[in-house]
């Protein structure tokens, strides 16, 4: 006996599951530093953006958004490729031995957009990074993505992130969220 629920999913179950699987796959590639495969999941006009968080009083919200603002990432494909090229030199001493890292993706929501073949996908990624001698760092980032069908596959076109820490808790961010 099926009862229809008083809540409507924005997309059908198939679409939702497709994006869920896609985000899990992306997380796995990032865990394993499969950066070439990760780059292939991005559109050529990818914008990967994470502003620097600040704490203002609620009534001063306007303060928080300025045209010139600092960021942790404000990268297009060229800059992402540059970061990856740096890792690939094998001269980044802090990544040797390899740091153990796990990206857990949760809170996934999928919405259609006004553009045919584009979806707005929200998620939260929790990064657990095990550093030298068992030091563990945990970082939580909210992500607001645009995914687009291109070359017959789904590609990430935009990722706006919110870094949920007022002070960055690790001495390097040699990875992606």
């Amino acid at each position, binding site marked *: 006996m099926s009862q229809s629920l008083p809540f409507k999913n924005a997309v059908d179950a198939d679409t939702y599951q497709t994006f869920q699987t896609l985000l899990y796959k992306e997380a796995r590639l990032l865990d394993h530093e499969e950066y070439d495969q990760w780059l292939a999941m991005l559109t050529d006009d990818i914008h990967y953006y994470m502003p620097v968080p*600040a704490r203002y009083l609620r009534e001063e919200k306007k303060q928080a958004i300025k045209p010139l603002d600092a960021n942790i990432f404000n990268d297009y494909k060229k800059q992402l490729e540059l970061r990856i090229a740096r890792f690939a030199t094998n001269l980044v001493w802090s990544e040797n031995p390899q740091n153990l890292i796990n990206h857990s993706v949760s809170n996934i929501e999928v919405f259609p957009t006004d553009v045919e073949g584009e979806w707005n996908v929200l998620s939260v990624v929790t990064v657990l990074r095990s550093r030298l001698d068992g030091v563990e760092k945990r970082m939580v980032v909210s992500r607001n993505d645009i995914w687009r069908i291109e070359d017959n596959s789904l590609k990430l076109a935009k990722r706006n992130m919110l870094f949920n820490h007022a002070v960055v808790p690790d001495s390097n961010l040699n990875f992606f969220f």
Partner: protein
Amino acid sequence: MGVDVSKLVDNKTGRQSRSIFHEQDIYEQEQERIFGKCWLFLAHESQIPDPGDYFRTFMGEDEVLVIRQKDQSIKAFLNTCTHRGNRVCKADKGNAKHFTCSYHGWSFAADGALQSVPLEEDAYYNELDKSKFGLHPVCNVDSYKGLIFGNFDPEAPTLNDYLGDMKWYLDVWLDAMPEGTELIGTTQKVEYPVNWKLPVENACGDGYHIGWAHAGVMTVASSMNIESLSLGNTEVDSSTAMAGGGMNGHSIISSLDGQSGYAFYPDPSLPVSYLEENREAVISRLGETRGKQFWGSQINMTVFPNVQMLPGLNWFRVYHPKGPGKMEMWTWAMVDKEMSDELKQTVLDNVCRTFGAAGMFDNDDGENFAACTSQNRGLQTRQKDVYTNMGLGKEYSHPEMPGVISDGLVGEQNQRYFYRRWQEMMAAKDWSAVPNYNSLEEANATGGQN
């Protein structure tokens, strides 16, 4: 009395005891004798332009509130309520007419005066003398060309005297353009398990580590060849690059080519054309040497104890100590006000990509500093010494450039003078016991304790 620091640093051999990066009692003495007595950076005037604008920061471990007054002057206060000690301001920055404590509701005006107290009549019987309970002021606040500094010691020299000959170099950035500079962007804060002195000694003089510690990013991100970095020390002379120390602990290292500050921009064309458009005007303001050789070069400047600025790479940074093994690094982009918005954005993005939280250069340094700190937890390890003895005895005087000069970006002269100043401040109970020197002759005449 305090800890005897006479054996902890030896400027003649470039030796430091590792205990200075570890011991709690040494750290406490730093709070008293360095952060309690030196001029400390509070904010840039551009961050608090209007009356009521405030910025929350630290002087050592003391949290302070810097506030622009109605008459445009600037005051600073300990960010602590005079009733029971709660914080009176929790935001990073903003604009306020008054600061109301969240505990019992005492409210303070922008000039620190206690303005109102809940139940003043019913509970205090109108017997509270409000004039005695204003916020505790930082006794000295002064600015140098846009940079606001505070000092807790009423006996301290003036800011102008404190900066001394270093002003000649600071002006290469602060006074190159008629409108001066501004800090842009949200404060980028990163916590490091690091003693605060290690990043200071690094950026004050350590051109040595750049080729090796940053080998990865140097391989992929350099758009210009900085001769003075790739050459060995013996092959460079002061026409290629210099280090300037002495100067009461302040210091500079600089290339002298007038454009290598932008060597780590993937495309330096926009900043380089800005440099060349303004070069003549800067030469007429600052003279040939500073306008041609310094302005636009790769430069690291340090104001003792914890401020560093790198024009070209355009970052401005202060390190806040949080215990012997922990510090918070705050970074901004500093730009000339005259720059176009497009150039400011380019500079800001480059600061973030090179020296921000995910900055490709900064992300090489943290791990090294962290281990230079944590290894000293070992009792046997910390009884060993560490050294900054490169190029000992190669210092000289220059007819035009102030301070104690050495050749090249790769050297350890400035680190030695940083630790000499650290030792002098740590040994002195008050400012009358602190030696004053800028040049090599003065530095030699005032000795340096061993």
